[in-house]
């Protein structure tokens, strides 16, 4: 099964990289951008077909390593 874990910075955590990207987009003349926050995407191949088990596995992976829950939130998706 294909799965995706998306890790984003919690609101309130300063994101200097996102700010720099936001500034670059503005200087490129891309209009209508209010703000940018940078995050990470992990595309993961899951063995087996049990969707609930896959979600539990991904949650464990995110809690143990992929996200630092002091500063980041994550979202888990399994596409059957």
């Amino acid at each position, binding site marked *: 099964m294909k799965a995706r874990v998306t890790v984003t910075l919690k609101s*309130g*955590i*300063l*994101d*200097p*990289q996102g700010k*720099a990207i936001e500034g670059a987009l503005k200087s490129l003349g891309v209009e209508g951008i209010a703000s940018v926050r940078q995050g990470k995407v992990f595309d993961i191949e899951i063995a087996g077909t049990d969707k609930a088990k896959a979600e539990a596995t991904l949650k464990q992976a995110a809690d*143990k*390593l*992929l996200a*630092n829950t*002091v*500063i980041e939130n994550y979202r888990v998706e399994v596409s059957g």
Partner: protein
Amino acid sequence: MKSAVLVFPGINRERDMARALTLISGRAPAMVWHAETALPAGTDLVVIPGGFSYGDYLRCGAIAARAPIMDAVRAHADKGGLVLAICNGFQIACEAGLLPGALMRNAQLKFICHDAYLRVERSDTPFSRGYNAGQVIRVPVAHGEGNYVADADTLARLEGEGRVLYRYVSPDGALDPAWNINGAINAIAGILNARGNVLGMMPHPENHVEASMGCTDGRGLFAGLVAHVARAA
């Protein structure tokens, strides 16, 4: 003082640290590989040195923080053993839950490699008894992710409990955004855990310990640790 310096792939300041410890404590530290599961018996001080463990992949310090040796470091700290975490070591200690908060990209997005001025906020800790409270020391920094952050509650607790030990200041000891080199919240350069036996700091005191380095302001930190351990023994 018996010290142990942890070695992770990608760490590059472990030999500077070993040299400083040998010079000031008179005893060479044990170099402990990350895959080990125990520290040498009788270790007083564990040092997590600086560098770029695992190439800073995922997040700085994230992978090293999950290495087998870190369970032994946690047990050592839980028993009141001393832990000194410098630069990447500070990032590893935060990722491992030994210290609160996290270290983000420097506010100005640049890797900074020059001397910083630090104010010693208190002298009654194992990590600062070699200095006077309010003293300003000059210590090198070399990092891209040293911008300390913590949530409001954690920050209030750190400040309220006097756990901010080192702060970035001007050469005359004043808090000034221009001298807060990486934009850290409250100009935090180094913090203690609640028990006061774990210090994390971004600057490198081990690189200012000999006259040939141009400055010896870092010696006090190590000399203080040696005195603390000698007194406890």
